[in-house]
Structures are given as structure tokens and as C-alpha cells.
């Protein structure tokens, strides 16, 4: 049996509003081993909120409730904010959607990567510098010495995202949560970034949670897929069998994509069934 790195049970994310409590995530359960787990869904389906809730990044007035979020048997829900800080980055790290907003614009890239490394280890400056260079090379950045001196605005989107991946992987975490890491990138660059992420995750035996709205990408890249709709998991399937998915929502999403190899006069439009959002969540636990 596969050992579980992360075990999430009955996770709820709630936001109180003037119209009452809005449930962004409603009773989601899943486990993550040393595998690539995809979470797909439309915007507003709660997929990013699930990723953020694991790291306890949801701030008040948002409320996170769960029976447990266990990282190798230790419940993160019970931890104090101070203890959480030792988890974030070091044991679970997260790559956000747009590198433009996650890099500090007034710090050189080298300083940022070295800061990330030295926060979690007692390395000296020169050690951190050498390690950062090595990491930049690992994400296939040409001329890393120059990049270390550069500021984020001098980087293209693809380079920025690779720098983010380097920064997130430098403390050698056990789990990487990637929230739409490639949706701000071009198709050609997308593949490159994914290959790099894939290689590093495999080499280090990490668990990866890959959040995306792109079904084809997830089918290609992940091992297992959770499909979310209105805050619930409606279907769990193996990524290579995604195209044989049963749930009408998954089928609808797949059919609404235009395809080069199968031309159609009209695209199918997703017909939503109110029952989907009331049906209980499917468990993604193994």
C-alpha cells in the first residue's frame, strides 16, 4: 500500500456574507501519496481554496473546518500559527498562478531565492548563493549568474514561473501545491515548465497537488484526478482514464472543448443539473 503523505478529511471552507454563510468548499476528502494528484474544475469550484486551506492560508473572516488535515499523521488543524510557519515552505510549498504577483518587484531574484533558502536552514550566504545557482540550473535557466542579479520585471512569464518553482523547491519540501502554474504561460513554454516540475517531483519523491482548469493538461500530466463542482468532488478517476469519465459534468467539460482531430459544426454547451451541487462529495481517499 502506498504511504499517505497527506490525509484530508471532510474539509469545509466558509465565508460569512451579508446573505448568510457561503460554502466555498463543502466536505472534501482526499489523500495524497507520492504521486501527482490533479484537481480540476471551473472558476469558483473551490479548487484553489482547497489548496490554500491545506496550508491554512485562508484568513478571517474565512473559516476552515476539517475533521483532519494530517501531514504524515500530524494534524495541521491543531497546530499554532507559529508551528504552521515551519510547515509552510519547508514541508509543503505552493506555486501560485502568476509569477508577476508572487515575486517581490524591488528585490533581485538572487536575494529572494537566497532568503527563501536561509529562512529554513542555517546556511551561510555563500552556501546559499551556490545552492541558488544550482537550483536555477536545475530549472533550466541559462546564464544563472545574470538572473541572480536581475529584477523580476526583466524576466519573461515562463522564466518567472521557473524561478518560482526553484524558490519553492529549494527547502526540499515533501509536498508541492501548484495552483494553475502554467495558465499564464504559452503552450510552448507550458510544456517546458511542466517537464521541469515533473522531473524534480520524481527525483525527490515529492507529492504534487496540481490545480488546473485545463482537463487535457491534467489528463496528460497527473496520475489521479479529482473533479470539483460547486465546492464538492463529483468524480475521482485515474488520469489516463479521464476521457472515459462517467459523471455528466466531466463529460460536459470534455465535450465543450474544440478539438483539432475531431471537427464539429457546433460545440456542445454544458447543461448544468442542480442535482450535481447537492449530491454528496465523492471521497478521494485511498
Amino acid at each position, binding site marked *: 500500500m502506498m504511504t499517505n503523505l497527506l490525509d484530508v478529511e471532510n474539509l469545509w471552507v466558509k465565508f460569512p456574507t451579508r446573505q448568510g454563510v457561503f460554502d466555498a468548499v463543502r466536505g472534501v476528502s482526499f489523500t495524497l501519496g507520492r504521486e501527482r494528484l490533479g484537481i480540476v474544475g*471551473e472558476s469558483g469550484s473551490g479548487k484553489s481554496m482547497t489548496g490554500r486551506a491545506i496550508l491554512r492560508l485562508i484568513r478571517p473572516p474565512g473559516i476552515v473546518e476539517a475533521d483532519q488535515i494530517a501531514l504524515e499523521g500530524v494534524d495541521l488543524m491543531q497546530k499554532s500559527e507559529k508551528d504552521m510557519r515551519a510547515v509552510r515552505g519547508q514541508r509543503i510549498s505552493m506555486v501560485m498562478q502568476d509569477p508577476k504577483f508572487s515575486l517581490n518587484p524591488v528585490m533581485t531574484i538572487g536575494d529572494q531565492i537566497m532568503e527563501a533558502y536561509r529562512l529554513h536552514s542555517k546556511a551561510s550566504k555563500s552556501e546559499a548563493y551556490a545552492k541558488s545557482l544550482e537550483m536555477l540550473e536545475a530549472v533550466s535557466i541559462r546564464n544563472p549568474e545574470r538572473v541572480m542579479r536581475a529584477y523580476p520585471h526583466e524576466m519573461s512569464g515562463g522564466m518567472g514561473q521557473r524561478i518560482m518553482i526553484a524558490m519553492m523547491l529549494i527547502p526540499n519540501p515533501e509536498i508541492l501545491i501548484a495552483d494553475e502554474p502554467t495558465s499564464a504561460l504559452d*503552450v510552448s513554454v507550458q510544456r517546458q515548465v511542466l517537464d521541469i516540475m515533473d522531473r524534480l517531483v520524481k527525483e525527490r519523491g515529492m507529492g504534487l497537488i496540481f490545480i488546473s482548469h485545463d482537463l487535457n493538461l491534467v489528463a496528460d500530466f497527473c496520475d489521479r484526478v479529482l473533479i470539483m463542482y460547486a465546492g464538492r468532488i463529483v468524480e475521482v478517476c485515474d488520469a489516463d482514464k479521464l476521457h472515459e469519465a462517467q459523471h455528466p459534468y466531466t463529460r460536459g467539460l470534455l465535450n465543450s*472543448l474544440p478539438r*483539432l482531430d475531431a471537427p464539429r459544426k457546433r460545440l456542445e454547451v454544458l447543461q448544468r443539473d442542480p442535482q450535481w451541487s447537492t449530491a454528496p462529495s465523492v471521497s478521494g481517499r485511498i
Partner: protein
Amino acid sequence: MSMLTVENLNVWFGSNRDRVDAVIGASFEIPRGESFGLVGESGSGKSTILRAITGLAPDWSGAITVDGQQIGKVRPKTFFKTVQMVFQDPYASLHPRHSVDQVLGETLHLHGFKDIDSRVVKLLDDVGLGQKFRFRYPHQLSGGQRQRVAIARALAPEPALLLLDEPTSALDVSVQAEILNLLADLRADRGLTYLMVSHDLSVVGHMCDRLAVMKDGEIVEVLDVAALRAMEAAHPYSKQLLEASV
């Protein structure tokens, strides 16, 4: 007869040392009623071609002919009645403090229409929104609904050529299908000509008859969709792009 002819178009930004050549020697022709696609990675100059045609990129050279009329530095009023554009981001292209009624009404007024009220009603029906959306503000609409309003605004002056700058890239796949169907229906109903920019080859393959592949500001290849589906791209870059998107 051709609706749009672009010959040897160059577009640049900045001057002297800071000059960036965004489009270099682009030429293509779109017959009336055709749907033509421009694909390429970001920074390849595909959107810049659209901006040069509409006058949003002021520094260009070459010849642009719309409906038989060559375009100079100053565009005549008839130009804006013939050519309209739909932008990429429906969150940024609508005025946040104008209701849908004001957005459409103002456009109609500027183009000198008298029966504004009935036209607003008709436009909203045409894009599948209906009357209940007429007095809403952009923040009360979803992304797909906003893009429908942007399309309605572009249709208001009854144009013949519609420039679409990544009209669905900010939308979910399920909403993308609705918008692409709407665009296809509108083209069939009104005999519109489309020039569509997208980075998604499958979207262009679905919507267009022919397409041009751009790289670093140059058009490297023009091919028709049948060749695209058969994976018969000649240029190595378009081959690479095709492989990445299947």
C-alpha cells in the same frame, strides 16, 4: 472581393536605441465572409497587428486596405462603422460605472443612430442576454456575460469586419464553448468577416477557415484548416506549435 488586405506591415514601438520592431513585413488577405486566424506565442506580434489596424498602435508603415479603402493616419468615420474589435479581458474592457444600457446606448449615439432604445433591446437579444441584463453594471455580470456585452457593443455599429483579440482566453472551457457558438452564429447570420487572434490552435481550428502562424513579429506560414488538421505544417515552428497543442 477582399475585406481586408495587409501588405508589408511593420509596427514598432519606441525610437532609436529603444526601438522594438513588434511586427515585421506582415502580409495577408481576407476575402469577404472568411474567418482568418492569427496564432503564435505571446510577444509574437499577433495582437499588435489588430491594434495597428484599428489605430491603437500609432507607429506603422505598409498598406492596410479595408473594404477597398486604403487607411491613412487619420481614419474616416466610415472606418469605425466597418471595423470593430472585441478585447481579450472582459473584466477590463467595460466601464465599471456604466450600465450595460449606457455602454450600448453611447456607442449607438456616437454612430448617429436615432432608434437607440429599440436597437439596445435587439442587440441584447442577439447576443443571448435578454432584457433583464439591460440595467446591470459589469460587476453584476459573470465573465461570459461581460464578454457577450463586449460583443454586443462591437456589433452595435453593424460592422462588416470584427477583430477578435483572444475573445475566450479569460473564460472557463464551458463558457468558452457558449461564446464560440455565439460568434459562429453571428457570423452565419450577418455574413461577418472575422480576424481572430488566439494562442489556442484548437480554438482557431474550430472557428477559422485559414490561419497565419507568427513568430518574433513575422508571419512564418499561412495555411488552411484542412492542412492544420492533417498536421501538414511546412515551417518547423508551426510543426512544433502543432505538436505542443495536440
